[in-house]
Structures are given as structure tokens and as C-alpha cells.
């Protein structure tokens, strides 16, 4: 259960965008996250690497308040989302975008309606203004020719592009990416990677990218962490990871080609 916001919560726009401290999460007998800590500065992109099942996606869901941690804190611009009630949490969520692994587009809505949805909920824009913004965002991800299509009519890569446009709709300060290139062919994966890179350069937002794509992470991230057994095994730049003598890190980088 979420309690009342802690009294020391404050909007700290000058500090790091995200501060995760001693975060722990268990599902039954299985410990998924075991006291991990890291922080992400404003306009910084952090890549989170690790084997499947090490709690990377859970970490993102905890950060946006979709799940509650068993211990630890997650401060988004100084506010602890782990101890927030629904109302204040939604205010924080409006400043965050989330790109889900499978896109998670609403199947009953067209491409354009998917991007318009958050705008119609949280802004006072007129219908015309919403449509114009949705079309601009879709054009920025190369999807402005498929406005009326349903998600079921799109390929995996196209769905992720639309999902990215939807995540950007409210002009968020923080973007969370869950396996943005998983299940895509190398060309589409590279295109999605380039989109993330161009957003990083133009929008200056903080981003956390959970990925297995070491080469993509090298290109679009400023810093990386590698997780193992629910803990941060190593944190640093890609060069730091390459210099590591840890057997797991060496094997992970070698097997990634």
C-alpha cells in the first residue's frame, strides 16, 4: 500500500532527474531486485544491460509507479514515487513517457487516435490542435502516412515508432524504454536506435533504456549499468565496461559480438 507522500518530498528540478536508492522487489520467493542504486542526470541517457529475467523491465515499471517496491526509494525530480498516492503520482507520470516492449498500442484506436489519447486527457488543446500535434509527432518518427491504420495492421517496428510518438505526446522530461529494439530486424533496430539518438540530441531529456543491444546502447547512451542477480554489477561508460575483468561482463560483451 502506498502511504502519504513523505514530508521531505519536493520538486527538485535542479538535481538529478532520477535517483534510485536501495531498491528491492520480490515476487513470492524470488528476489528480482536486491537493493540497487543509481541516478540519472537531466539530459542523460542511461542504458541498463543484463540477462533476461534479471528485473530490468520490473525496474522500469517501479520507476513509473506501475508496481510498488518492497524497499528503497525512487525519486523523480526529488519526489518519491514509491510512496505517492494516485493523484500526485499521475502528475509525475504526465512528465514521463514509457515505450513498452511490444508497443502496447490501444488496439481499438487508430494510429492517430493512439497519439491523440494522452493529449485529449491531459491538455486543453482543441481537436484541431491535437490532430496537428499528433501528426507532427508521427511525422517525426516517419509514421505520418499511416494515420488511419489500426495497430494490428502495422509491423513490429512501425508499432514501436507509433508508441514512441505516443510517449512523446505530452513532451515528457523523462523517457523510459523497455527493449526498444527487441524482436526487430537489424535495419529497423538501427532506425529505432537512430530515433532515440536524435531525440536525445534535440529534446535534452533524461532517458533510461533497458536493452540487450550492446552496440545500440554504446551509440545512444551516456552511461551504462549492467545488472546481475538483482544488483548493479558494474556502472560506467562503455569503455569502462570494456576494461572490466569481471567474467560475466567480459562474456556478455563477447557474446554480443
Amino acid at each position, binding site marked *: 500500500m502506498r502511504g502519504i507522500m513523505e514530508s521531505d518530498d519536493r520538486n527538485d528540478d535542479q538535481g538529478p532527474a532520477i535517483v534510485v536508492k536501495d531498491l528491492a522487489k520480490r515476487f513470492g520467493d524470488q528476489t528480482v531486485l536486491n537493493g540497487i542504486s543509481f541516478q540519472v542526470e537531466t539530459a542523460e541517457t542511461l542504458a541498463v544491460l543484463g540477462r533476461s529475467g534479471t528485473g530490468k523491465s520490473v525496474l522500469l*515499471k517501479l520507476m*513509473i509507479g*506501475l508496481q510498488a517496491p518492497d524497499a528503497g526509494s525512487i525519486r523523480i525530480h526529488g519526489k518519491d514515487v514509491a510512496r505517492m498516492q*494516485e493523484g500526485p503520482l*499521475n*502528475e509525475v*507520470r*504526465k512528465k*514521463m513517457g*514509457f515505450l*513498452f*516492449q*511490444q508497443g*502496447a*498500442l*490501444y*488496439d481499438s484506436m487508430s494510429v492517430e487516435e493512439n497519439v491523440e*489519447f*494522452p493529449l485529449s*486527457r*491531459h491538455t486543453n488543446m482543441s481537436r484541431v490542435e491535437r490532430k496537428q500535434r499528433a501528426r507532427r509527432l508521427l511525422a517525426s518518427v516517419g509514421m505520418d502516412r499511416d494515420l488511419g491504420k489500426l495497430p494490428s495492421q502495422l509491423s513490429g517496428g512501425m508499432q514501436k515508432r507509433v*508508441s514512441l510518438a*505516443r510517449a512523446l505526446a*505530452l513532451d515528457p522530461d523523462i523517457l523510459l524504454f523497455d527493449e526498444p529494439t527487441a524482436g526487430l530486424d537489424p535495419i529497423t533496430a538501427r532506425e529505432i536506435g537512430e530515433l532515440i539518438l536524435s531525440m536525445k540530441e534535440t529534446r535534452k531529456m533524461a532517458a533510461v533504456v533497458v536493452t540487450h543491444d550492446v552496440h545500440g546502447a554504446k551509440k545512444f547512451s551516456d552511461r551504462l549499468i549492467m545488472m546481475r542477480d538483482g544488483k548493479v554489477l558494474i556502472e560506467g561508460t562503455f569503455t569502462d565496461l570494456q576494461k572490466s575483468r569481471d567474467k560475466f561482463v567480459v562474456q556478455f560483451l563477447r557474446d554480443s559480438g
Partner: protein
Amino acid sequence: MWLYLIVFVCGAAVSGGWPVSASSWNSLAARDLVGRFFEWFGEFGLFCGRLMRRAVAPPYEIAEIVRQCDSVGSKSLPLVALAGAATGVVLSLEVRDSLARFGAKSLLPAVVIFSIVKESGPVITGLIMSGRVGAGIGAELGSMRVSEQLDAMEASAVDPYRYLVATRVLACILMLPLLTLAADFCGVIMGWVAGQLGEPMSLRLFLDSGLKDVEFSDFIAPTLKTMIFGSIIGLIACFQGMRTEGGTEGVGRAATSSVVLCSLFVIIADVILVRLLLLLFP
């Protein structure tokens, strides 16, 4: 009566409608089964409580409510009308022979109209809607759960309870009485048509002799009780859909359990409401 209810509920658990899979049935101890039974009711209670808190607070999802009313109401109309018409025909044909044996054929219009308006129309509508809408909502929300669409909605600061659940439940509550009226109308008209096969009678005479002794409470109370059926169908189908897990197999289970539980609880509610209405409107 309570013995019948317990038998119904246990029947649903055995049939797989309850959240106990057939494969795990044998291995579960009786205590686990009882535990799951109460766990389901506990979770359902929490779900209803959470929904009530969210649904009463603005903003209200008027556009989505209208869309759901269209989906639940107008798209179910042909099926409900057909079921009502079939009930009217069967009732008229069956009752005419029975009444003829007792020399009471003149009571045919009254028996057909009373039967349809007081019981057959509401129950048939409730059961038809349990199948069509219960399965639809269970599968739709279940599919949204497993494909992370509900998470995506929550992540974009939109409350799925308010946007998806409250609107569907309200649409079911509003549409069931209207659909019941349609079923009643078709049943009565087709009852008259079927009656024509045995003994021709004008529609006016049929309605006059049938409605002669009908009071307002005979008509309004059974029709309004379908609002309870609507709330049962909406709540159970949404609950089963929202708690779906286990990929596409889970979506199938959610749809099936929605239909089974909605039908079951509509029947149970009917038993209770009939008794209650007899007490209130003797």
C-alpha cells in the same frame, strides 16, 4: 434456496469457471479450494470498492459511456430481440395446449404477457447479455492486460478503472432494461403471431385481454431488476478481464469464466430478486 445457490457455486468451480484450472483440480486440497473461493470474493470486493471510489469522482467519461452504450446496447439488440421473439413463440405454442386441457384458452394472452414481462424477458435478456457482453468485456480487457495496454494507460496517467471499467459497468446497467423492453415487445408480438396458428385473434384483442389485469408494478419492477443483472455482468466481466494473466490462454480463460460466472450470478440474483419483489409488491 441457499442449498441450490451453494450447489450452483460449487458447480461453477468444478466446471472451470472459477479460477481453478482443471489440471490443478486434482492436486488441490479442499482447504485450498475454499481459500481460493473466499480469495475470489475478497478480491472482487476490493475491486468493487476501488471502482466506486474512482467512478464517483470527476472527470466523467461521457464520450466513452456513449460509445459503450452503443457497443453493449444497439449491437446486442438483434440478438436479444430474436431471443425474446423465440421465447414468445415457444411460450404461446406450449401454453395454448396446456390451457386448452383445462378449458382456459381465453387466458392465453394474459399468461403469455405475464410470463414474458415478469420473468422470461428479463432472465433471457440477462443470460443472452452474460454470453455476449460478458465474454466480450472479459476477452477485451484480458487482452489489454496481457498486451500491457492497461499498463500503458496507467503509465500515461489515465485511470483504467475510470476509463474502461466504470464506463462498461454503467453501460450495462443502463442498457439492460432497454434491451429487456425490446425482448418483451418482440416476445409479446411473436406470442400473438404464434397464437394466430391455433385461433385467430386481432392484436388489439390480444393486448386488451392480456394487459387487462397488468399493474404498473408487474411491469416496472421486473424490468428494473435487470439493472442489477447489468451491474453483475459489467462488474464480473471487468473483474475477470482485469485480473487476467498467462498470455492468450489466460485471455481465453477470462472470457470463459466471465460467461460462466455472469450467467451463474444472474440466475442467483434472479432467485433472490423474485423473492424480494414478491415481498415488496405482493
